[in-house]
């Protein structure tokens, strides 16, 4: 047995693995593990560095904190329910209905991915706030701040992610299961209950955990529409920025980290179960005619997506208004000089995002390529480590950066630079980009790698001639994912910006806080448009690549 296996192990060069893994591993340790441990450490030490649990006791001194935790939990649960209900219906509308104009649904679902929760919150305020568009036009008293505003903003933000996860599971359900059920006499409703739902269970669980975590740790909409309905993310912000109580901020961060870790772990568990099913492709599924079903799904899709379009549309409208909400004369002044810092913050955001994406994609490519060759003993823990950032809220990581890098060797040039913001964005979104890259690399045939090696090629040649052609689409996806996420993120970078380093997303927040909604909207639209352009460029590149390489 071993004599058969052994030659293969030799043929596959392993000397390159260590080299490939070294730099990404160093990055993960320095910019992810280290800050995270610092937060943990800070939460269990007092001002003099002595070990204590006193910080956790202090959580209950201030009645505001347990109340904020309760608020966070309520919003998390409520958002999860509404997002799951609407997301499931939208995915069904896309994959199990004969609705015309599905491209409209797909198009509308892109908006929340381009607009961070902060922008959705801003649009909601402009639309339904005390001085919002609806109030101005109809005179109805509207007040969106608080629970309902947060619920709507977070639901809109979570929708596309639920639809993507559920759609993937729907696409994996083979048509023959429906044929079998149909031939045995199952009605469409029974087919939904007996065939569709069981195959969706784990996807629904995974999506629910994702939405719950994101809502729990969301800062963008909390700061804009939360109002007096304080949630944990706002409390961390106040402790750190308002009262400079870093220990308390760290303790709250750990409190936030626990449920996030738990839910990401459960989500991964659910995902693993789901992947174990058979995925053998078969006949493409063509939904049967069913007017009632299509009418119902169409109505629900409209209910979910009209608000998305309305909210983002309102931001676009407000950005071209002279002085929101008092003087609604249309003008481009906000774009041509009305923005207090001009296009500086937008340029900085683009630069930071580009840096995060370029460095990130190189590191992640090396990591994924290295893991292909590493022995399981090394690969396993690294795999977990690379996926762990998914469980860490941006604010916790950002706080970790402050606590770690505001003194010590790197504090001089790194702290307060664009590089630290880029690093924080990169490691905040490391997990998803890494998983994308790894999935792409799974398509590289082992035999091709072995062939290059057997012709005498070294690691360099293997990467260039065997791995890269197959991994290229994944690399492009990972690059743009990092770029677009870095462009819109707020929670991770909120503690890292300095007066000299303005970012577009932070500018939106500051201007909103000070009531300059039109200018905030203008910055928000810059971010949305830049994201849309990046998305278009990504699709173009992937398309060209598919035509040229025949492997995408």
């Amino acid at each position, binding site marked *: 047995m071993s004599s058969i296996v052994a030659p293969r192990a030799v043929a596959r060069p392993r000397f390159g693995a260590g080299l490939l893994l070294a730099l990404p591993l160093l990055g993960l340790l320095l910019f992810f593990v280290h800050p995270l441990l610092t937060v943990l450490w800070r939460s269990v030490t007092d001002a003099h560095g002595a070990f204590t649990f006193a910080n956790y006791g202090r959580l209950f001194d201030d009645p505001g904190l347990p109340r904020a935790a309760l608020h966070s939990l309520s919003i998390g649960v409520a958002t999860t329910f509404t997002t799951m209900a609407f997301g499931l219906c939208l995915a069904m509308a896309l994959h199990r209905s004969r609705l015309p104009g599905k491209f409209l649904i797909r198009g509308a679902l892109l908006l929340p991915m381009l607009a961070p929760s902060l922008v959705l919150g801003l649009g909601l305020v402009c639309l339904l706030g005390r001085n919002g568009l609806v109030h101005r036009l109809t005179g109805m008293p509207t007040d969106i701040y608080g629970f309902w505003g947060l619920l709507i903003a977070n639901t809109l933000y979570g929708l596309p992610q639920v639809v993507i996860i559920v759609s993937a599971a729907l696409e994996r359900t083979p048509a*023959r299961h429906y*044929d079998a*059920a149909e*031939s*045995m*006499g199952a*009605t469409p409703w029974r087919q939904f209950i007996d065939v569709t739902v069981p195959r969706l269970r784990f996807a629904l669980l995974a999506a629910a955990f994702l939405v719950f975590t994101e809502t729990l740790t969301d800062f963008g909409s909390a700061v804009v529409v939360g109002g007096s309905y304080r949630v944990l993310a706002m409390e961390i912000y106040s402790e750190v920025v308002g009262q400079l109580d870093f220990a308390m901020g760290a303790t709250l961060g750990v409190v936030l980290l626990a449920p996030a870790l738990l839910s990401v772990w459960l989500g991964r568990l659910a995902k693993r179960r789901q992947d174990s099913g058979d995925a053998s492709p078969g006949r493409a599924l063509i939904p049967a005619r069913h007017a009632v079903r299509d009418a119902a799904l169409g109505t629900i899709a409209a209910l979910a997506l009209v608000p998305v379009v309305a909210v983002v549309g309102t931001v676009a409208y407000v950005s071209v208004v002279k002085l929101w909400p008092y003087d609604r004369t249309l003008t481009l002044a906000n774009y041509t000089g009305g923005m207090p810092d001009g296009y500086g913050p937008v340029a900085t955001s683009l630069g930071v995002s580009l840096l995060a994406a370029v460095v990130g994609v190189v590191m992640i490519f090396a990591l994924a390529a290295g893991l292909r060759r590493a022995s399981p003993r090394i690969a396993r823990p690294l795999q977990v480590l690379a996926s762990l950032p998914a469980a860490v809220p941006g604010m916790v990581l950002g706080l970790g950066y402050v606590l770690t890098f505001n003194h010590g060797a790197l504090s001089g040039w790194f702290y307060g630079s664009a590089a630290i913001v880029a690093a924080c964005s990169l490691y905040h979104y490391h997990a998803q980009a890494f998983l994308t890259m790894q999935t792409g690399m799974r398509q590289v045939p082992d035999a091709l790698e072995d062939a290059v090696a057997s012709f005498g090629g070294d690691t360099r040649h293997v990467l260039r001639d065997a791995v890269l052609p197959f991994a290229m689409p994944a690399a492009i996806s990972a690059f743009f994912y990092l770029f677009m996420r870095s462009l819109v993120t707020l929670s991770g970078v909120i503690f890292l910006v300095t007066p000299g380093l303005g970012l577009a997303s932070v500018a939106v927040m500051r201007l909103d806080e000070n009531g300059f909604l039109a200018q905030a909207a203008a910055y928000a639209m810059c971010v949305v448009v830049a994201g849309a352009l990046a998305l278009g460029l990504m699709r173009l590149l992937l398309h060209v690549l598919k035509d040229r390489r025949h492997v995408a």
Partner: protein
Amino acid sequence: MHLRIDDIGKAWSGHTVLDGVSFHAGESDFVCLLGPSGCGKTTLLRIVAGLTAPDRGRIVLDGRDITALPARERRMGLVFQSYSLFPDMTVAANVSYPMRLRGESPAAIATHTGQWLERVGLGALAARFPDQLSGGQQQRVALARALAANPSMLLLDEPLSALDPAIRAQLRGEIRALQRSLGIPTIMVTHDQDEALAMADTIVCMNQGRVEQIGTPRCLYERPRSRFVADFIGHANLLPTPFVRETLPAFLERRPPGADATFELCLRPEDLVIEADPRGEGVIEDITFLGNLARANIAWRGRRVLAEFPGRSPLVCGEAVSIDAVRGAWVST
């Protein structure tokens, strides 16, 4: 139960898949739809099942036109190529599914499920999940599930193609025996001629959306009507009329009238009688030894024919042989 398929036509986006197909299946008949992939046989089965709507034609079951009846009201038991068991239900839950749909009492369901599982020899595996079974076991469960629906017909879509050869042969016999004992009319789609020859009462041989020939396996093998059927079922030596006139003139007597090019003589390898003869016109080019049998390619007046004879025959490669034929069928070209 009597099924009549009447002039069924179907096109997918302009491409004709079925072009006027008709046949019928009588009480307890086992009918095989045989043909190469892409000949439309699976589409035809799906139309019979009600999963695909035909563009034209009728399906009549026991005198009742069911063409417009949705699949779930047709009561046809379906078995697919593979993996059509619900992965999240146990074996017992899969088999009892149709009975649960009909709302039978739990006691009756339990009894019948047990009986069906015993019938396919899987009584001990009731609590397993499909992914814990072998391919052959999964297909047995699929069969039990289809039969548990108490169907008026059984429709099998290449049920054995995904299985290992040994299991395939075994299951072939089991399906046939079960079908006989239940007396349920059955249509099976297959591209495997051996399977069709071994199992069918009637073979409907299809090519490019049309029926080439309908008949018993023996009829199709011994008296193929077209070149396609002769070629597709078994090995065939197809000899043009002028060649036959020179070499085997006796066969011309039974040749249907028509120009030389319209018919060819089909000789099965075992129809050829080969004898060692130094003055013979044939030369053995190669011999494939198969144990009880041997097959030889023989050069014969500028043609090459395949002959079959007992494996013990002393014939060797390069030997000169005389060639005659005992049987043959004229096929249209």
